[in-house]
């Protein structure tokens, strides 16, 4: 039996004006378990707390009920008071007789009556309270960043600068991501490579950062502060520690017709290649799908020309095990396939390109050395048509496009149109738009400059069809302002393809038990207040894996994610919330209902031995809650059909007792 002390606060006249505090404390003194009952002007004051501490000592109290303001106000205060007097802080319950009683009732009789019921309810609960201790777990002071684009790079640099070790896992042979493929960046038009490559070098040279390029995350176990991650390092058939990146092999390799993914297949590379000049790490990689030596053992040219002896045809995929305290997802995006949008003739004409392809064409390091020419015949185009929202804002066509706005297209299209007009004043540039969306600093000014100063023709309307005819592309579109259908004989058509999360994201989300929305974007812990955290503790989100983003937003979010990681890694131990779910293994029937509803992946199943009748041993599958991951929502407790799952601090019995006390 508990020895409960009840403390009724007057809160000056806030409570005392409509609640007869003396009557309340007298009434509650008669409740079962109550051995002491008192009232005081301000319980939260130093004197009030001293009064509680003294009573704890004097009456050997085991539980406390404070009838006062909302627990959202002073629950913490009174818990600390209790703890300082030597009883468990979770043996304190608050009866909210201010916000939920004295402030809303005018009649002292009504107020007093209700306050007594509320106090009785809290006492009923405390009678069933048990001391709770928050679990502690150590923190591995190292972070993993999945994805080496600008988001991953920025997050890694910020974490490393705070003095923590960071590993970047990048599936491609080099870090840099999409930004490395861009030409200029809006709205300032600085060159992407000029601002990105120094950061890539910083990453490479940072003593706290390791890069696992051409690698993938293969498995993740553990929980916040204690993740065990298996990284698969794919065989690149070149020894990274030896290769000097001289590039001789990439010039001598006889297999010349490999589509160059860095230029989106618009030119070719060799079977051994370095994606681009500023690649980090600057190490060659052999493409096993094309290499003659790896396919049929006939070649070996690269090995012969390599003075550093870095080529190793025998290299195998290797698995690396590493421990991390936090994981940042920065898996990025890709433009969607244009295959299903053949009304724009993407598969029928080489001169219909996506914006990312156009970006490569405009880039000095691209397939045309930055000269704007038609991919089909190398001629200079005079009329260019940009089509916005290709696959974005596309409802009712899930197999084709995406329902969301891809956010970045309006701005990069304005950039492309402006740069085209700037470099080639002899061109006619049309942009077909549904809406021009430019909410960003200096964004709308930029778009207006494209239209006003550079003479880009912005047409409100959509392109309906593109038809290659001879060496022209006949573009049929509507001009909604003029209420006309217009036909343009264009030389090039550029499609602003919708963007989607990288295909690798889903399998990573599964490994991390991080949740995703229907579009495969990672969901944040709170859409407004916790935008860079996943609901799963210890998992953080950086960049376009969470939603379409431009570079400034990505960098800002990357920094925010880093700050959250630093906050976590700075702790030596993590103190959990003790009000977590726990399963009574004797009652658990192993049905997995709880596991399915848990939003945090905190529940797992283990096979456990139990003593059966006649000295037999039974192995049963039972649920186990990881208290470090559980956030204490209680969804599992209701899902559990056998009543094995319960929530500490809000146990079924406690809530039942409260219900009974109210209904008495």
């Amino acid at each position, binding site marked *: 039996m508990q020895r409960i002390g009840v403390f009724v606060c007057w809160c000056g006249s806030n409570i005392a004006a409509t609640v007869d505090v003396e009557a309340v404390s007298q009434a509650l003194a008669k409740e079962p378990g109550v051995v002491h009952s008192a009232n005081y002007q301000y319980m939260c004051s130093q004197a009030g707390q001293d009064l509680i501490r003294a009573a704890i000592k004097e009456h050997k109290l085991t539980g406390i009920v404070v009838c006062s303001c909302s627990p959202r106000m002073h629950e913490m205060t009174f818990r600390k008071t209790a703890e300082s007097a030597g009883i468990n802080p979770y043996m304190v319950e608050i009866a909210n007789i201010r916000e939920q009683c004295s402030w809303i009732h005018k009649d002292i009789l009504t107020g007093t009556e209700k306050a007594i019921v509320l106090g009785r309810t809290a006492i009923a609960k405390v009678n069933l309270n048990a001391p709770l201790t928050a679990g502690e777990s150590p923190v591995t002071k190292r972070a993993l960043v999945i994805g080496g684009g600008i988001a991953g790079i920025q997050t890694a640099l910020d974490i490393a600068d705070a003095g923590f070790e960071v590993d970047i896992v990048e599936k491609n042979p080099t870090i840099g991501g999409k930004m490395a493929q861009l030409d200029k960046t809006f709205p300032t038009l600085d060159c992407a490579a000029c601002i990105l490559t120094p950061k890539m070098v910083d990453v490479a040279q940072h003593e706290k950062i390791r890069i696992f390029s051409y690698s993938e995350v293969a498995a993740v176990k553990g929980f916040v502060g204690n993740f065990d991650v298996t990284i698969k390092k794919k065989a690149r058939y070149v020894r990274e520690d030896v290769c000097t990146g001289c590039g001789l092999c990439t010039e001598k390799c006889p297999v010349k017709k490999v589509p160059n993914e860095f230029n989106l297949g618009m030119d070719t590379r060799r079977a051994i290649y370095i994606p681009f000049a500023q690649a980090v790490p600057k190490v060659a990689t052999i493409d096993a799908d094309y290499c003659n030596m790896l396919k049929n053992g006939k070649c070996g040219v690269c090995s012969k020309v390599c003075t550093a002896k870095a080529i190793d045809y025998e290299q195998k995929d290797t698995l690396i095990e590493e421990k991390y305290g936090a994981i940042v997802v920065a898996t990025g995006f890709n433009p969607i396939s244009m295959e299903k949008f053949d*009304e724009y003739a993407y598969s029928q004409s080489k001169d219909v390109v996506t914006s990312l392809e156009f970006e490569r064409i405009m880039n000095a390091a691209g397939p045309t050395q930055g000269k704007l020419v038609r991919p089909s015949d190398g001629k200079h185009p005079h009329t260019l048509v940009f089509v916005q*929202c290709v696959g974005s*804002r*596309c*409802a*009712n*066509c899930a197999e084709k*496009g995406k329902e969301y706005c891809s956010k970045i297209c309006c701005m990069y299209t304005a950039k492309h149109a402006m740069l085209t007009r700037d470099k080639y004043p002899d061109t006619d540039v049309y942009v*077909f738009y*549904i809406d021009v969306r430019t909410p960003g600093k200096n964004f709308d000014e930029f778009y207006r400059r494209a239209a006003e100063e550079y003479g880009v023709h912005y047409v*409100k*309307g*959509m*392109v*309906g*069809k593109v038809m290659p005819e001879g060496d022209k592309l006949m573009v*049929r*579109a*509507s*001009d*909604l302002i003029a*209420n006309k*259908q217009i036909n343009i004989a264009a030389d090039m058509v550029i499609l602003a393809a919708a963007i989607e999360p990288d295909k690798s994201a889903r399998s990573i989300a599964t490994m991390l038990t991080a949740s995703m929305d229907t579009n495969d974007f990672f969901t944040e812990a709170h859409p407004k207040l916790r935008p860079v955290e996943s609901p799963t503790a210890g998992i953080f989100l950086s960049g376009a894996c969470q939603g379409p983003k431009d570079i400034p937003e990505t960098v800002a979010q990357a920094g925010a994610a880093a700050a959250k990681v630093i906050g976590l890694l700075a702790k030596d131990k993590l103190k959990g919330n003790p009000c977590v779910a726990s399963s009574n293994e004797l009652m658990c029937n192993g049905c997995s209902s709880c596991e399915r509803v848990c939003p945090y992946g905190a529940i797992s199943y283990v096979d456990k031995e139990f003593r059966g009748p006649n000295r037999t041993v039974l192995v049963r599958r039972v649920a186990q809650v990881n208290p470090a991951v559980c956030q204490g929502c209680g969804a599992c407790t209701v899902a559990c059909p056998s009543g094995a799952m319960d929530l500490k601090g809000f146990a079924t019995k406690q809530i039942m007792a409260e219900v009974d006390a109210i209904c008495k």
Partner: protein
Amino acid sequence: MEKNLNNAREEIIRRSGVNPSKCMKCGKCSGTCPAYDEMEYHPHQFVYMVETGDIEPLLKSQSIYRCLSCFACVDRCPRGVEPAKIVEAVRLEVIRQQGANHLKAEGVAENLDEEIPQQAIVTAFRKYTK
């Protein structure tokens, strides 16, 4: 009169099964319509005018006989609005009135030539008469 037109709007929406408020005004239907130049009111206007209840001009316009029912607008609409179904519903609203058939049997002979396929005649009748 106003009440009747309001009925016409509801009738057209019910019959076509189209929800015009799904339209995001991108104009792709009109950008793709092969009959655009022959129409006084264009596919996007049909959707908009039905949405706002401005039905009368549509009922009086020859545009309802110019739609080819090629369904390009239906297929390419990013929001699944199906403008061609609206056009057809407006046409039915007209030709179902007493004596409002667009094609009269007496006029058929003059339109015939040696090669014209039966398909043309039956389809035209199905589209233009009740």
